[in-house]
């Protein structure tokens, strides 16, 4: 020892220090995660950023100054500081932000209210209400907006009279039929299930002794809600807020349908327009602004949640959970909730189902009912000879592919989400935790098409140990996982934040490795969060189309690409049939999860 020089002592110290740092699972997994995310997410985003500063061959269409291959600020000035900017950027971004905040606020009210009702009170019919709450999410969001139009349409877009106008002979004003109000309402109804599930989880694992202590000292029910319940579930609320906010500002179908007649454009509709007009750099600039907004909201989220506050509700001690009694309001509350849910979820579903059996739109007589679209053969007068869905020879292959992709992607995404959620939750102090939080959220905002285009070039040839994945199902699974990662990481971190450290530490002292701790303590505790994440990703993956349409080859067709084909040709009934099939599959999976996975959404995600 005495022979060692100062240099070797220092380098030994440095070496040991580094090993120690690596030994902490947060750092190790965080590092691996960051590398994975760097390749699958950060790299594509940097590429997009890079291209916005270059002249491209296509830019000669816009201006004579174009000099392909050279650096330029033209694209950014065009979007931010030209005579186009008002209509191209500033008005849409204000609209998008407005819609985003309104949708999040409204969904928060609906979702949290419902969650509290189902999880913390003694309202009857809990399982039914919880089940119905998930249904709006199963339907594509444009269906709700179509329903709104059917009801509130006014003269402006002609066609058959809207129901309200027909019944009450009052033409609804423009602001009610189109634009901001219907967009916000449609999106809120569709997305409030996120709040319901995430906040429901947090509420269900809360120890009611906390509330009881307060009420014993004389606090009113409202005060308890405001000063104890609300602060404790804040991370979940914020997670839900961010998810819904970003989803709302990037949604396309609903604003396109309801906003165009009154020139209400959002960034998402402008972005779609740029992509279809082949002005790809303009599209990239717009999507980068969306990403910037999201990074800002996440940063704010991190500041509010803070580094040292504790949101632990699941500790080593046992917890009691008594339900708040609603007294006389039990049945009325249950009744109202059930009726509202049925109106928003079941009615559109039934309408879709009926329409898939109708030969001609709008004719409600028995002779018009046919099973042709389900299993009919080819009839040249109907849909130019397109066969019924079940007779379509690609159908079985597409069904198999859809199930495989959705199943695999949801399992992988849920587990990875939980692991990364662990890093984010436990690593709040370290820069790794915060970085993972930021980077894992980026895919939410990269338009599916951009991500897919970049993935073609990234995975078309083998790179070192990664084989050429283009054209395989594996690539579809990978891209679905990456796209859904934001949700699963947010959900995972929200539920991890609730689990007290002492549970792990007890195991650590007894000698368990990190892997054992995860497998035998954290995983079971987060089982319901895992289940709900799995379910929501499964639903999302089954409905996903835009993301995978570029990567599909004839052998990897899915149900949604068949839907795309039908929608392009305007075969409404066939589209409805496929939608019904997708919904039936999801409901089956949901039932199985409840029966055998013991997922109980009345308890929300997470907790016992």
């Amino acid at each position: 020892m005495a022979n060692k020089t100062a240099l070797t002592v220092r380098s030994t110290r440095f070496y040991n220090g580094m090993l120690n740092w690596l030994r902490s699972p947060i750092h190790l997994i965080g590092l691996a995660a960051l590398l994975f995310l760097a390749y699958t997410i950060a790299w594509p985003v940097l590429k997009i950023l890079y291209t916005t500063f270059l002249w491209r061959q296509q830019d000669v269409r816009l201006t004579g100054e174009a000099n392909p291959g050279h650096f330029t600020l033209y694209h950014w000035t065009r979007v931010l500081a030209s005579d186009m900017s008002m209509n191209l950027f500033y008005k849409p971004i204000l609209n998008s932000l407005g819609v985003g905040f309104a949708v999040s606020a409204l969904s928060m009210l609906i979702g949290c209210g419902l969650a509290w009702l189902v999880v913390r009170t003694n309202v009857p019919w809990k399982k039914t209400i919880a089940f119905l709450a998930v249904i709006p999410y199963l339907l594509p969001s444009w269906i709700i907006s179509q329903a709104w139009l059917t009801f509130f349409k006014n003269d402006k877009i002609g066609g058959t009279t809207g129901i309200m106008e027909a019944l009450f002979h009052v033409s609804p004003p423009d602001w009610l039929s189109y634009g901001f109000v219907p967009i916000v309402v449609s999106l809120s109804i569709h997305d409030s299930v996120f709040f319901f599930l995430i906040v429901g989880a947090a509420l269900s694992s809360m120890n009611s002794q906390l509330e009881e202590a307060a009420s014993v000292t004389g606090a009113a029910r409202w005060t308890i809600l405001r000063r104890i319940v609300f602060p404790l579930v804040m991370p979940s609320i914020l997670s839900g807020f961010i998810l819904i906010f970003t989803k709302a500002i990037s949604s396309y179908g609903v604003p396109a349908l309801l906003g165009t007649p009154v020139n209400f454009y959002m960034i998402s509709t402008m972005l779609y327009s740029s992509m279809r007009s082949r002005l790809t750099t303009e599209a990239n600039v717009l999507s980068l602004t969306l990403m910037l907004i999201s990074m800002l909201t996440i940063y704010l989220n991190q500041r509010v949640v803070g580094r040292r506050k504790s949101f632990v509700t699941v500790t080593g001690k046992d917890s009691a959970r008594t339900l708040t009694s609603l007294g006389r309001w039990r049945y009325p509350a249950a009744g109202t909730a059930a009726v509202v849910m049925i109106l928003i979820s079941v009615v559109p579903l039934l309408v879709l189902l009926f329409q898939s059996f109708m030969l001609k739109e709008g004719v409600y007589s028995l002779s018009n009912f046919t099973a042709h679209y389900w299993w009919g053969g080819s009839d040249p007068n109907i849909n130019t000879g397109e066969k019924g869905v079940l007779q379509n020879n690609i159908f079985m292959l597409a069904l198999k592919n859809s199930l495989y992709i959705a199943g695999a992607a949801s399992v992988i995404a849920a587990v990875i989400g939980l692991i990364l959620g662990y890093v984010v939750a436990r690593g709040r102090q370290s820069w790794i935790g915060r970085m993972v939080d930021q980077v894992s959220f980026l895919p939410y905002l990269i338009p599916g098409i951009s991500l897919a285009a970049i993935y073609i070039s990234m995975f078309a040839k083998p790179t070192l140990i990664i084989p050429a994945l283009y054209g395989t199902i594996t690539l579809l699974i990978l891209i679905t996982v990456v796209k859904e990662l934001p949700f699963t990481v947010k959900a995972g971190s929200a539920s991890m934040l609730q689990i007290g450290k002492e549970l792990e530490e007890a195991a650590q002292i007894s000698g368990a490795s990190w892997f054992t701790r995860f497998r035998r303590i954290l995983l079971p505790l987060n089982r319901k969060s895992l289940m709900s994440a799995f379910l929501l990703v499964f639903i999302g993956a089954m409905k996903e189309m835009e993301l995978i349409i570029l990567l599909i080859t004839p052998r990897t067709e899915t149900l949604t690409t068949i839907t795309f084909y039908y929608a392009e040709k305007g075969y409404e009934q066939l589209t409805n049939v496929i939608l019904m099939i997708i919904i039936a599959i999801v409901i089956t999976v949901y039932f199985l999860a409840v029966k055998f996975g013991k997922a109980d959404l009345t308890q929300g995600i997470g907790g016992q």
Partner: protein
Amino acid sequence: MFISKKKTALVLLTAASAMTIMSACGQDNKSSNTLSNAVPTDAPASSNANNASAPSADPSASPAAESVDELYAKAKEEGKLIVYSTSGRANDAAETFMKQYPGIKVEVSKVKSDEMMDKVTKEQDAGQFNPDVIITKEVSGAVEEEMVMTGRYLKYLPEDIAPMVDEPYRTQAEAYANYVEFRTLFYNKSTYAEAPVTNWWDLTTPEFKGKVYTADPLSSPAFMDLFTTMVINSDDMAAAYKEKFGKDIVLNGTDNAGYEFIQELFDNGLIVLKGSDDVLDAIGKAKSEALGLAVSGDVSKNEEKGWTIAPIYDIKPKTSVPDSGYFFIANKAPHEAAAKLFIRWMMGEKDGSGEGLAPFNEVGSWVPRSDVKTKNDISFEELNLWLFDGDALYKTAPKVRDFWIKQK
């Protein structure tokens, strides 16, 4: 030192991932280099190919057009065919093709035209040459500029069928198109006994204030092409204005008559809807005095959707600009003989009576062959359409789009 085997494995995995990322960066630089090198060398070869339909330099069409039997023999050896198509009509043609020529399996991928451009570009840059036949519409001239001129899509028109093909698709256009659609005005048959307008400028009169619908050109480049063509042919538009109003047109802050037309449409309460179907729903279901801009092909859906709409085929100065469905053979197609055989099949073979032509010869679309009888009321040669000027459209479309955005 106390490192368990698991930790070592994890550290190695991390290091491996790091190397992968660095190599990915390296890989990318290489492919971007090949792209910039590929463009100049390919361009002269393909512009030779584009100038004549049976060039000696173009490998796709040999001097003596191969006979069907020769092609079939070669195609059977190839055994497969991969088609990228924007239209579902390719599927119908594929089914009859496989019955006619057993032994060749056809796989059709349905992709939108702009996505197809991305897909093929990225694939080819990465060294993958998957598709054989490309069936696509134009994207405001971008297909010609970015795919045809760079040699990614190759023209193919068999010599024996060429004489029957109408211009411009025989030699002038970027390729042979098997079917042509266009956007035009529709009116409600139960309200109007005959076409209520004969001149585009009729739409800017007080009679039609707030009664003109269109699909959003911002999300549909094909609709924008109509307006862009009006801007390109603004002299025609100015002449039509004079014909209707008897005086010269006065420009209110716009560059030419085409832009003025767009501005006056907006001033007259133009209503923009999401898509062609929405427009026809708006005017076609109940009694309505309104007119709508929609795709010619939608006439065939009258029965199904419960509409009572009819198109206007003759509008001054010209009705519209063609939206052509072009046929290409992809560069370095792996199954070339099968590709040629399939294209011949879809063209209807030499006499135009082959079954493969049927999906393309529908109401609302026209086949530009002089020996094919159309199902429409008016034949292809009688249509009063502007020429599709890919080059001009490519350069002008973004400016018209910008103008439209500013009008909102």
